[in-house]
């Protein structure tokens, strides 16, 4: 069996996403390497969610180039996954939702239950395996979404404000799980507007302002000595909503 080549690094070259008159993402160029936990930061409307969806392939750029090191072919197993702010579960049991995702990834039926159960145990939801996914609490569903993504063994995990709708204890649980996933070797790319969370979880910060990549820096330097005026204003809380 051929050893799978990594899909990283991901290269964005002059990528824009224009809707109507506005450029929601404006000529962004960057390279995402394996390793550091990347946090995308910025005020509301800065284009964080759209940028992540462009990377993940849910949106096509209006102009520019997005290229993974190993191209994705349709029908092939995906090696990146995404967790959304609000989890979307099928009307089935918790474990069945994970088995569904494994099925699409081409895992054989006999293997699916075992892997799904392992993923549930990893997020502490094994006792809710047979419960209908949609009756779980918000925090539990988000943990289930993480378990589902994790079961797929992605190389890159995108997270779109994963704790924005959760209470502090659920948030702490989710952050713990993200750390476990990272430790197992997955590249984490997350956007948030919670500065404390960014500081806690990030290794590097990508700061977006009005669709442009205003600054990119290691986390400590960003928070202690922001280089760009937009970042400085943001951290001081002075940036107007765009």
């Amino acid at each position, binding site marked *: 069996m051929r050893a799978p080549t990594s899909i990283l690094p991901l290269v964005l070259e002059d990528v824009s996403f224009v809707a109507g008159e506005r450029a929601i993402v404006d000529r962004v160029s960057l390279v995402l390497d394996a390793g550091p936990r990347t946090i995308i930061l910025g005020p509301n409307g800065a284009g964080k969610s759209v940028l992540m969806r462009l990377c993940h*392939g*849910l949106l096509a750029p209006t102009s520019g180039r997005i290229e993974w090191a190993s191209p994705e072919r349709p029908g092939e197993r*995906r090696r990146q996954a995404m967790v*959304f702010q609000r989890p979307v579960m099928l*009307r089935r049991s918790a474990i069945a939702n994970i088995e569904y995702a494994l099925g*699409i990834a081409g895992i054989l039926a006999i293997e699916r239950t075992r892997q799904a159960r392992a993923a549930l145990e990893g997020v502490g939801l094994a006792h809710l395996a047979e419960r*209908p996914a949609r009756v779980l609490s918000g925090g539990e569903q988000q943990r289930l979404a993480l378990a589902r993504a994790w079961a797929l063994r992605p190389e890159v995990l995108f997270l779109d404000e994963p704790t924005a709708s959760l209470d502090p204890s659920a948030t702490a649980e989710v952050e713990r799980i993200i750390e476990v996933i990272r430790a197992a070797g997955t590249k984490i790319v997350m956007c948030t507007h919670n500065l404390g969370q960014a500081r806690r979880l990030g290794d590097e910060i990508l700061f977006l302002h009005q669709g442009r990549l205003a600054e990119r820096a290691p986390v400590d330097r960003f928070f202690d000595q922001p280089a760009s005026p937009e970042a400085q204003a943001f951290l001081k809380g002075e940036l107007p909503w765009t």
Partner: protein
Amino acid sequence: MGTILHAIGEAAGLVLTLDPKLVEIVVLSITVSLSAVALATVLALPLGAVIAVGKFPGRQTIIVVLNALMGLPPVVVGLVVYLLLSRAGPLGPMGLLFTPAAMVIAQTILILPIIAALARQAIEDAWREYQEQLRSLGAGGWTAALTLVWDIRFSLLTAVLAGVGRAAAEVGAVMIVGGNIDGVTRVMTTTIALETSKGDLPLALGLGIVLVVLILLLNAAAYSFKEVAQRRYG
């Protein structure tokens, strides 16, 4: 008022004595309408899914036309199918005219747009909710569509029930393509029409009461089925 009371009495009498003619007519009505619903559902669900999820030129026009076809007059459908199945028509040699099969064909054509249009709406709404997640997982095209349809199956049941209601209630199409032949193509609605034209209004109304009660029971059964399933799957 007297006629109505008389009709209730007639209805009760027919049902309690399990009048064999009534049983024959009811069984045929149910067979024809449910066959049409089954056939129409098999065709309409994929059609609704494709229109709901697809992007192609003229999509909006197709949606408008599909919604408009929900109002197809049964008698017009009956006439068109009659002309197709008549010996003088293109499908004449199949010998389907004046058989239950012709009635199933006509009713299928009649209710297909209803189920497809309602399914399209339900699927499109659900697609908006599920789309990103399904595509993120790598489910594309048919996989996503089938997953979606299966997940909202209980909402789609409502669309199917709308089709059942229309099929069971119509008389125009089955009268023309079936010929209302005694013992062969006589269903509840055509019998009601016949008894009305013979002036036996209490009997016609009595049959009407039986028909409405049957449809009510069917809907009640479907509703409780939905409730139970809702509780199980959330």
